[in-house]
Every structure is written in C-alpha cells, then in structure tokens.
C-alpha cells in the first residue's frame, strides 16, 4: 500500500468533503424535484470509501456496490458532473439517463454499479473476480453491500463459491446500523456480522469504518491476500449514516440524540482534526479546499441543469447489443 502521508490526509479531506457536499446538493435539488425516484445518500460513511481507495490499485482493481452508490464511481475516477447529470435524468449522465440514482456505472473506471436489489450484486462481484482469475489477471474486486444484504441467501451461496474457487474478491459490509428501519440487532440472533465468514473459513474481522487510515490498513491486507492467490476476505466495516435510508424515511426507528452522538465521531471532522493537530495546513489552506469543493459541486449542478434530456430512442438502443432488434410497438 502507498504510504499514508500529509498529502493523503489533505486529499482525504478534500475528497470526503466533496462527496458530502455532493450528496447534500442532491438532497437539496431532490426537494426541488430536480432529482426524483429513490435517493440514498452516503453522508457519514465517507471514510469507508476513502480508506478503500487508498488501498486499491486504481489502474486495475474493481468495485461493485448496492444502491448507495453516487460517490464511489467519483472516487474511482468518473467525472462527478456525469454522475449528477445521471441523477437529473439527462442524456449526459453516466447511463445516459436510463439508470438514475441506484444504477451508476463506469466501465472506464472499473465501477460495476450501482445495484438496486439488496444482495443481488454479491454474486456479480464474485463473477468479476472469477473472470480475472480465469484470464489470469491480478486485479481484485471489492464487493460492497449493506448490513441488510448479509441476511440474503445470495451472500451465503456466493461466500461458499468464492472460497471453494479461491476468488480474488474482498467482501465488504458497510454496516451503518440499519437496514432501512430495521436495526442489525433485529435481523439475526447475534449482531457480529463479520462472524458469518467463519463458517466458510474466510478470513474475516470487524473494522472501524469512521477512520480512513484504519479502513485502508485492513483493506490493504485483504486486497494483498486476494492478489497473491489467498482468496476472499470478509470485512464488516462499522459506520453510520446520518441521513435516512432514503429521502422518504422519517427515521422513527432511532433518536435524534443517537444521530447527534454519532456525528461527534464524524469521519471528515476526524481527518480535519488530524490535519490541524499535525499542523499540516492552516485554516486559510483548509478554507481554500472548502471553497474549491463548493465550486466543483456548483459546476456539477450547472452541468446537470444545462444538459439536454435523452432522445427517446435511447431506451430502445441500449437494451440489446443487436442493432436491429425488433421491439414490439406499445402505442398507436
């Protein structure tokens, strides 16, 4: 893994702040009905992504996740303007306006979605790794899921196959405490999700997901194991989401005090405090980063606003690789 330096923390601060402000902007424009459908925001979980990206080899490693997926492709290298445009349903979006919030993809940057069915992406992640092993490439696939997805059968079938075939994959649970409104404690007889790996003899452990350097270190170990032929790992990364499951969530299942308490461990504040403690930046320099982030988010919004909606034929053109597929007519 690359060394974690002053520059790493400064970059983390800028990236994590950008992701937070990007999501805040989406929440704002959602209220204005510029963005519709379901909207699941990443606020509070930023250290999980920041740490993972540091440990990954972004020239060859892959990532797949569920529907809380706006900022991961940005971290992987995708243009955030195109992600914002996708949420606006515009033709310039990452999926040309066909995917929306839950289905962001970036083939160029090896981000494989963006999946709306809880747990449905878990075997896909193993399949990406299967193809890498088959073709004797040394890429590793990070397969993310939420805590709710660990109760799906897809996890268990995939864990068994991934260990049986020794696939180069890291399974990562972002345990943010709640599957929509159902706390982890209410979904199984014990709440130590990482222990699910034990039955498959898969290396597994819990990870503090509020500190990027901790995530990076654990992720690096798992990635190196996969890359060197040691097979899959399972990390339960413990984090917290500040906002509701989606925008329509009234959050009656938890107290405001609980959220406030968790926000005291905010991963972005944590990175910033570390920078100040080490005297790696002045308040002016941090102010400059914050200004830059604000401007970048504004650029994304403007790009999405100004972009055209897709042409109607695109919903047909994207279904099949076959160019002359004879679709049935649906209107007079």
């Amino acid at each position, binding site marked *: 893994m690359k060394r974690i330096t002053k520059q790493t923390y400064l970059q983390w601060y800028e990236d994590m702040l950008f992701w937070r402000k990007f999501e805040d902007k989406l929440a704002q424009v959602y209220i204005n009905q510029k963005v519709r459908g379901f909207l699941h925001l990443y606020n509070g979980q930023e250290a999980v992504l920041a740490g993972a990206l540091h440990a990954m080899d972004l020239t060859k490693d*892959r990532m*797949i996740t569920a529907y809380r997926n706006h900022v991961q492709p940005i971290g992987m290298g995708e243009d955030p303007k195109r992600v914002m445009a996708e949420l606006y349903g515009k033709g310039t*979006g*990452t*999926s*040309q*306006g*066909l*995917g929306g919030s839950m*289905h962001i*993809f*970036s*083939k160029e940057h090896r981000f*494989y*979605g*963006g*999946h*709306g*069915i809880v747990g*449905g992406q*878990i*075997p*896909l*992640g*193993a*399949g*990406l*790794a*299967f*193809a*890498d092993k*088959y*073709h004797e490439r040394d890429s590793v696939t990070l397969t993310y899921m939420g805590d709710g997805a660990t109760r799906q*059968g*897809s996890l268990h*079938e*995939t864990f*068994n*196959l991934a260990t*049986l075939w020794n696939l180069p994959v890291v399974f990562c649970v972002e345990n943010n405490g709640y599957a929509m409104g159902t706390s982890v404690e209410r979904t199984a007889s014990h709440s130590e999700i990482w222990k699910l790996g034990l039955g498959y003899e898969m290396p597994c452990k819990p990870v503090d997901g509020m500190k990027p350097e901790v995530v990076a270190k654990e992720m690096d170990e798992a990635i190196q194991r996969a890359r060197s032929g040691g097979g899959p790992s399972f990390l339960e990364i413990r984090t917290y989401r500040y906002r509701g499951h989606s925008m329509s969530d009234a959050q009656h299942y938890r107290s405001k005090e609980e959220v406030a308490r968790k926000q005291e461990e905010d991963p972005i504040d944590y990175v910033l405090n570390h920078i100040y403690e080490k005297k790696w930046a002045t308040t002016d320099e941090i102010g400059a980063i914050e200004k830059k982030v604000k401007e970048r988010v504004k650029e994304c919004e403007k790009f999405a606003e100004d972009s055209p909606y897709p042409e109607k034929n*695109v*919903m047909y*053109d*994207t*279904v*099949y*690789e*076959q160019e002359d*597929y*004879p*679709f049935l007519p649906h209107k007079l």
Partner: protein
Amino acid sequence: MKTIQFREAICEAMTEEMRRDESIYLMGEEVAEYNGAYKASKGMLDEFGPKRVIDTPISELGFAGIGVGSAMNGNRPIIEFMTFNFSLVGIDQIINNAAKMRQMSGGQFNIPMVFRGPTASAGQLAATHSQAFESWYANCPGLKVVVPSNPADAKGLLKSSIRDDDPVIFMESEQMYGDKGEVPEGEYLIPLGVAEIKREGTDVTIVSFGKIIKEAYKAADELTKEGIECEIIDLRTVRPMDHKTIIDSVKKTNRLVVLEEAWPFGNVATEIAYQVQTQAFDYLDAPVVKLNTGDTPAPYSPVLLAEWLPNSNDVIKAVKKVMYK
C-alpha cells in the same frame, strides 16, 4: 448429413464453440465429472479441463450471478440449469442483472451469455418439475428465448446463441435428449428470431415450438388422411418472435391453431393470437384456438397428466373447429 441424438447436438455445439473461443466456459450442477445430468456435456471435461467445464454445488442463485458478473468482465459463460424449474431460485440474477444490465448502464455492459437446460414436463414429475417458463422469460426485455424441437435446430441455434452478444435463454427437454435426427456435417449456424415452416399445407396454420410440436406432426399425419392439409410453423425462437412467417401463413390458410405446453393465462400463444388479430384480422375465417396445458399445477397420476397435457387428438379437434367441421 449424419444422424445424432439431441444431447449430442447440444454437446457438439458447445464443444465447437469452446474450441473457437477461449472465453467460453460451461458451468452448472453435474456438468463436468458426471458428464451432465442428461449427458449433454459428455467428454467436455476431458477435452477442456476443470477450468472451463465447471461443476458447482447446488447454488443456482450463486452461480447464475457469478456467470453474469464474469460476462461483465470478459467471459462468455454457458450456465446450465439441471432444469429451468430450478432457475427460479436464481431468477433475480437473470431478470434483474443479465437482462437489465445493458440498458441500466446506458449501454456500457452487454451480457454475452447463455442460460440453458430442459423446460416443461418430462413424465410424471408433478407440479414443481413440469413447468414451462418460456413466456415468463420472453416477457422480459433484454433476454432472447430459444426453444428448439430437433437435433439439427438445437445445434445450429445453440451455436448462434453462444455467439450472440446478448443473454439467451436456451430451453431443451429431458424427453428430447434421446431424440435422433439428421444434422448437417461440418459447421453451420441457424439465426435467432427466424421461424421455420416444418410442413407446408393450405388449410390450417399450426404454430408451436419445443417438444410439444411433435403432437402437431402426429395430428397433421392423421388429418391429411381426411384431406385436411396443415401448415406447421416451428417458432424456434420465442423472443424475438418471427411474426412475419406466422402472418404470411395465416393469410394463406385463414385459420390458426397455436399449440404450446404452458399454462393458458397470458402465454406465448396469447401473444401470437393478439398479433394475428392485429395484423391479419380480415384474413381470419375463424377465431384462433389456443391449446395449452390445464390451468392447474401439473398433476402426478398418469390419467391426470394425460388429461392435463395437450395432445394430437386435441390438435385434431382444434383444427376441425377452426374449419367448422
């Protein structure tokens, strides 16, 4: 021409395609060391080794999904279901991932893969093992659905399905694997989406597909003795459907019977009847007749199963009905 079994046609198609493209692999329950539950992959493990002919545990959801994921990353998998009845525990991976991936990624990821295995009834296997899901899969945009009825079609269509850059559902039958038929020597392909007139006739059009079409052949042999000439169309591909061949035939015969081994509600025959009344309303001399299974789960008892399945006598009755005889 040479004469081979249906299972050999399937095996030849997969073997020939795997020889020409290293990215193809075969995965499923009992496909490798057992040589296939129905011996449709006999000898393939010996030729290609365990890297490309892969036994799985009983985990349809898991291996269907791994197949889709690998298709996003450079492979062209053939995923075998021991029967399509078992595909239901993995259907999320087919409907939500294989079928939708290309469109919801804005065209970034096509899924070049085949899901194959037997469909419909196969003797007295009762409710859970006698189901035909052609219309379910054909209802879903993003998929193609191929259902051959003889060895020659099976080989040519399977080769095309494996080469196709979109996900294909390829449906066989336990009761056809032993069927023998003439197959061209050397390599040949049959394009998807093209029906074939298997028997020419002037009086009634019968459209069918898969193994049940044999009941139409038997009926036509009987009816010709009474001077009634049936034209039999084998759809071969259910989605996309070759409407033109059906419509052209109905314009000639003015009468249509559709024979399909599936439950009657909203099935493939329903779609054909709709298309024909839309495109050839003025040519019809009688209402279209659909012949399907009973509107119940498949029963076990031989007497009940015989009643549940459509047969050649039902076809004869239907033909006479549309001819007002």
